[in-house]
């Protein structure tokens, strides 16, 4: 089944209902918004959008952390897994929210402290807090690469 939604980056578009994620607790700071669609930027891009179905301006750029932090494994509590019915983190799809400075996009960072954990089977999701204090709020995504002008 497809559904037409309004998105911040692409305007009106058709999505598959299987792209809709349910956040029982919302996202930190936006607890009232429970439904988001996971939308590809394009087929080649590592970026995706997490778009609220209820508020067009509520959209986040997200990325899978294994692309820039291959050893990252968030330290979650049982309560995190229970909320979205996961028996282990291995079953989860992990996404991190990206922040991009307007004046210097190459300094974009990903939030490894507050990852978005998705149960791909039930499409339930939660923004969890990693209990590992070495997981930064702002991890430079383009660390260790030569600077190019963007």
């Amino acid at each position, binding site marked *: 089944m497809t559904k037409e939604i309004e998105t911040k980056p692409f305007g009106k578009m058709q999505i598959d209902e299987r792209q809709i994620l349910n956040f029982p607790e919302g996202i930190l700071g*936006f607890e009232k918004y429970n439904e988001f669609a996971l939308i590809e930027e394009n087929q*080649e891009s590592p970026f995706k959008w997490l778009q609220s179905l209820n508020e067009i301006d509520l959209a*986040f750029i997200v990325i899978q952390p294994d692309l*820039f932090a291959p050893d990252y494994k968030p330290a979650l509590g*049982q309560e995190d897994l229970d909320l979205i019915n996961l028996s282990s983190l291995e079953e989860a799809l992990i996404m991190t929210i990206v922040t991009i400075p307007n004046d210097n996009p190459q300094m974009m960072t990903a939030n490894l402290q507050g990852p978005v954990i998705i149960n791909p089977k039930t499409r339930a999701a939660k923004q969890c807090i990693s209990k590992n204090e070495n997981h930064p*709020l702002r991890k430079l995504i383009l660390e260790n690469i030569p600077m190019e002008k963007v």
Partner: protein
Amino acid sequence: MLVLARRLNQSIIIGNDIEVVIVDIKGDQVKIGIKAPKNVSVHRAEIHQEIQAENIKAMNIQIKPADLGKLSDILKKKPQ
């Protein structure tokens, strides 16, 4: 707010199964131990606030599709 005075190694009980112990006191820093069931989440308050603030920043990003495309290209070239 309920305010209780406690000494080193004394504790308080919240509900039936959460215990908060004063483990150490040094100057203006207090170390607190928390025994709680696995389904209760315990975090420093400022971590919540910092993640909320970062989410608001992330939501307010203004990036042109072309610039996001360039970032994507750089990322794909990045050596693993």
